[in-house]
């Protein structure tokens, strides 16, 4: 039993720390984003690929670094801490295990950032239940024809390919009968509606009306995609928890700094007991979020088979505590915390979206309850 970072993990954390501080300083974030405009900052993806970070979640036999859940945690947590607008949790950690049988050159393109892949979620009316798939895939000639709607392709706004879960048999939330397809953005019959969320991430909605895919584009076995999909989502959930924990870490520390430097009524506001106690509660919330995330991550690493129950515990608790921390960080900053210029407000926006993505706290709490 050991809760310390390994030497490699410490080096990775340091490297993210440097990159974040230099390339994406908190004080400049609002200006950088404003200059970038609607297109966002896609070049960052190539830059972090160059640092090798995208290789972490891919297995060694795929040419990746074979990073474990806790390596992904270190990576995602650093990204969250610096609010780097790079969708590592989704375009790398979430999709990596689903791409394992893809050709080597394709995987290389993914890991070097040339090609982006996103997972299509939010099927029809399924809300956050990702195994509740209504999109259909019918065998037609050499390939399949897909019909359905995917409302939320997490960070799919700039993706070149989509992993699309569709039913080749079964219905509702049955595990059997879900197949996974890799679909090019350019596919016939596919309409991609791109949109932006409040945290400046770019997602999309897919409308599949007879979208065509060759049989080579089936990922894994037909009808057997449910289990790997569930496993992939679990990995994504853990990475998002880590991202939120990183953001909480930064928020706690910058708010503490503010309490020590901002004066009102002739004294640093950190001398007021009610604010001190609030600050303590924020740090406790961080401690809690970190703890449950580590626990869920390490149990996943050890292969504990719990149908993602512990990951749901983490997602629920992290959603609750991270929003508490972000809201209180703004409250303690006062007016300035609500401005676009202050990075504090960016953390709230990101954490609001991180709570929602892959299912919010309320959903995961009920999921946890259901898997008794």
């Amino acid at each position: 039993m050991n809760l310390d970072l390994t030497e490699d993990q410490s080096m990775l954390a340091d490297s993210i720390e440097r990159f974040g501080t230099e390339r994406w300083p908190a004080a400049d974030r609002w200006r950088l984003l404003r200059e970038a405009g609607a297109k966002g900052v896609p070049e960052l993806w190539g830059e972090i690929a160059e640092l090798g970070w995208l290789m972490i979640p891919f297995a060694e036999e795929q040419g990746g670094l074979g990073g474990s859940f806790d390596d992904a945690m270190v990576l995602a947590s650093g990204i969250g801490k610096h609010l780097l607008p790079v969708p590592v949790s989704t375009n790398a950690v979430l999709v990596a295990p689903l791409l394992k049988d893809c050709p080597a050159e394709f995987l290389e393109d993914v890991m070097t950032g040339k090609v982006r892949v996103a997972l299509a979620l939010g099927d029809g009316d399924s809300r956050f239940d990702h195994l509740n798939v209504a999109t259909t895939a019918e065998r037609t000639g050499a390939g399949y024809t897909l019909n359905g709607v995917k409302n939320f392709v997490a960070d799919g706004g700039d993706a070149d390919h989509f992993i699309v879960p569709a039913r080749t048999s079964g219905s509702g939330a049955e595990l059997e009968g879900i197949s996974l397809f890799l679909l090019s953005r350019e596919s016939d019959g596919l309409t991609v509606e791109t949109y932006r969320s409040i945290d400046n991430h770019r997602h999309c909605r897919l409308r599949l009306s007879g979208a065509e895919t060759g049989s080579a584009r089936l990922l894994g076995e037909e009808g057997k995609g449910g289990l790997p999909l569930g496993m992939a989502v679990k990995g994504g959930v853990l990475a998002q928890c880590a991202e939120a924990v990183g953001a909480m870490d930064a928020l706690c520390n910058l708010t503490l700094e503010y309490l020590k430097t901002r004066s009102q009524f002739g004294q640093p506001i950190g001398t007021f007991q009610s604010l001190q106690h609030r600050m303590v509660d924020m740090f406790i919330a961080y401690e809690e979020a970190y703890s449950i995330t580590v626990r869920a991550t390490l149990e996943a690493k050890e292969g504990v088979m719990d149908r993602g129950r512990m990951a749901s515990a983490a997602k629920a608790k992290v959603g609750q505590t991270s929003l508490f921390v972000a809201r209180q960080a703004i409250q303690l900053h006062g007016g300035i915390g609500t401005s676009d210029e202050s990075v504090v407000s960016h953390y709230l926006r990101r954490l609001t979206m991180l709570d929602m993505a892959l299912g919010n706290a309320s959903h995961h709490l009920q999921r946890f309850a259901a898997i008794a």
Partner: protein
Amino acid sequence: MNLELSPEDLAFRDELREFFAGAVRPEYRTAIRAGLRPTPQQLTEWQATLAERGWGAPTWPKEYGGTGWTPTQLYIFETEAARADAPIQFHQGLELIGPIIFTFGTDDQKERYLPRIISGEDWWCQGYSEPGAGSDLAALSTRAVRDGDHYVINGQKMWTSYAHVASHMFCLVRTSKEERRQQGISLILVDMNTPGIKIRPVETLDEKHHTNEVFLDDVRVPVSNLLGEEGKGWGYGKVLLDRERAVGASTALRLRSQVDAIYSAARRIPFGGATLADTPAVATQLAQLEIEALTIETMVMRLMADAAAGVDSGPRASMLKLRWSETLQKVTELWTEVLGYDAAVFEDLSGEGVPEDMPLALQGALYARVTSIYGGSSEIQRNIIARRSLGL
């Protein structure tokens, strides 16, 4: 004890109900229900509509163009306005500076300013906060120096809501160097077209432009624009404390229709063979919030009863502000939560449009964070109650 309305009040209510039914435009409704303000244009238009009917200043005495309504009539007015999802009148002219002008202003100031506040022709903004003076307003450092018939103002104001659309600003300035803190502060009325005023927009976390920094650089204002006595500006703020109830009441009474808006949203969302509104988690949260809203409504009634009895309503108004802002935050958060993945669609980038509730619902949730900070943060409100009401 009873909640019954007298026949006169009932007739008044029916008159109001009919008026609102005709006057409230459907486009106001979405913003109101999301806890947002309508646009300045809409607010000005609404003010003019009310003024035309003679109801432009519901809380003012008749002699200054107000309605002279009793607290009960005012409560009925606000209740009916809420019921109809009417816009909430913008308060900085009507509730903040207007009453100070008619209480402490010169006849000339009353004639010049009051009618144009009621008609909506003038838009007033509040030049109070500064970078170093937020919760601790008395630390302000903007200075006005007498130079013949003028004051020359230099300094910087922050969080000046709607300075970019305002025609006038009421501005707290320091007119005496010697004294510290609350002493030596004066209240000056400033025409926003005066040279030397520079406005820098400050965008907020909901990606909107409500507020500004205002830089005052050798701004020359006639001495006749001083309100009341020099050096007594701080004291005038106190007249507001007893009027806070009006602002609190009009916003607090909107909570029920805001809860109702989420209920409608949840009803629209299919889930598990029924709708999201039928799931226990959502139904229970909605019930809790409706109960909060009902409670707060009744707190407004008690506030109005205080007003009628001439009792100090300050602490109760602070309680209302606290509970309203906390509840509004929960309400708007729940709306966002109910939307599920739709809450991600803040801006459409490919011309397909956004879902019915977006981005208003999320803007409402983000904007709601401001409500526990502005007008005296929740921490300040608790300090006020502890001191004024509990003697701690």
